[in-house]
């Protein structure tokens, strides 16, 4: 019962903040709405017994990445100058990708047979599910290779950014 109320609360706020993020004109306000979306998602992760992911969501996305976003938005002080796409083209792209995402979600939901499979899935959770130690164990055994590949990719991105920033443009 409590979970249902909390889920409704978090999902409604996530939807409301997403709409705000898309429709607000001011870039800083959009960024703030995105922070709201991330916080709502973090609440949902807690409801899914994934406290670690929830904390990481706040720490990394809401706390670090969005601060950098905000930082850049403020420094550049963008006020709708010289957009990359015309408003019409941007809208077209937006609807196109939104449609694709919607079809994908529909596909997943239908192929799983709606919500029928969910109660068993929750019952099948091991007691340590979502705890930091459990995630760490899986990450460094079963998923070691993808994990290391991801870290190397990130490393390359960092090195690339430094090289680009240091290059003298004559």
């Amino acid at each position: 019962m409590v979970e249902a109320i909390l889920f409704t609360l978090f999902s409604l706020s996530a939807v409301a903040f997403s709409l705000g993020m898309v429709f607000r004109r001011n870039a800083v306000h959009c960024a703030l709405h995105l922070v709201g979306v991330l916080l709502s998602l973090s609440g949902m992760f807690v409801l899914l017994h994934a406290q670690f992911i929830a904390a990481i969501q706040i720490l990394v996305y809401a706390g670090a990445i969005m601060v950098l976003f905000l930082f850049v938005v403020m420094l550049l002080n963008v006020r709708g100058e010289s957009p990359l796409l015309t408003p019409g083209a941007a809208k077209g792209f937006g609807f196109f990708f939104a449609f694709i995402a919607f079809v994908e979600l529909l596909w997943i939901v239908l192929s799983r047979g709606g919500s029928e499979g969910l109660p068993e899935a929750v019952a099948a959770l091991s007691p340590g599910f979502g705890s930091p130690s459990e995630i760490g164990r899986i990450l460094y055994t079963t998923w070691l290779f993808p994990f290391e590949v991801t870290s190397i990719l990130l490393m390359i991105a960092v090195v690339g950014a430094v090289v680009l920033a240091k290059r003298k443009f004559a």
Partner: protein
Amino acid sequence: MDAAFLIASAVKVLIVLGFVLIAVPFIVWMERKVIGHMQDRIGPQRVGPFGLLQTIADGIKLFFKEDIIPGQADRVVFFLAPALSVITAFVALSVVPFGDKVTVFGREVPLHIADVNVAILWVLGTTSMGVYGIVLGGWASNSKYPLLGGLRSSAQMISYELAQGISLVGVILMTGTLSLAGIVRQQEHMWFIVPQFFAFVIFLLCGIAETNRAPFDLPEAETELVAGFHTEFSSMKFALYFLAEYANMMVVSAVAISVFFGGWHGPILPPVVWFLIKLSLFLFFFVWLRATFPRLRYDQLMAFGWKVLLPLSLLNLAVTAVVVALTG
């Protein structure tokens, strides 16, 4: 989730909230008095015995002052920013254990509001959210010095958060838990400041930088930026920023105590008293630092964070990892 649990949690929330709200005026008084004596002055002494009521009088004055909002300010964000500062500081305090379990009416009540198994991440996450209060305050004022103060602060906090987080990983490796209460329980025989001394020094330095206290108070450097991000804030909004700063000092002190100084452990006296004694010592240390050190230059601050603290914290982590792996 029974009624008794809800009541116990509500009471604990009220105690922590009330304690912080009552303690902050006295910390401010302590700060003015201590700095006064360190600079060969006597500090506040007119209002109440030893000037004890001075800050309360100041608070009442701020409460009744006119609330001025700059004409070009972003009104919603201007309103939101100080509130965000205070909220994040208080939310971080919710996972700090201030005593061992006590038995009330035959029920065991742990003395922290929420025992989450990711408490350390929770504190780091909420304090990193605290930067919004300052950045947005600076931006929403729509004025150049606050904006510069806000930008400085976001750069500073992001830089020092990294080293702060990594300095705590050493202790997490040794204890195998992210729960603050769990870490405190493992310090019954030895405080973690002994094996993790460098981590503690790094954590404390970063903590001072995170709370924007001297000598890292660049975001509000008055010789360069008037008053930094809170230049345009008046009345209770200014008071909220003030409250948030002192609440954040308590958060950093409380985490340092729990992780490195044995939390509530101590001989003879009851656990809560030990926690409060350690907390007061830490707060005194913060004040002492402010009276002692001049402010850093901005490039010194960034270089210190990235070129000294971050490598040192990584080195400490690597050494700890090797030792933990070798000893089992």
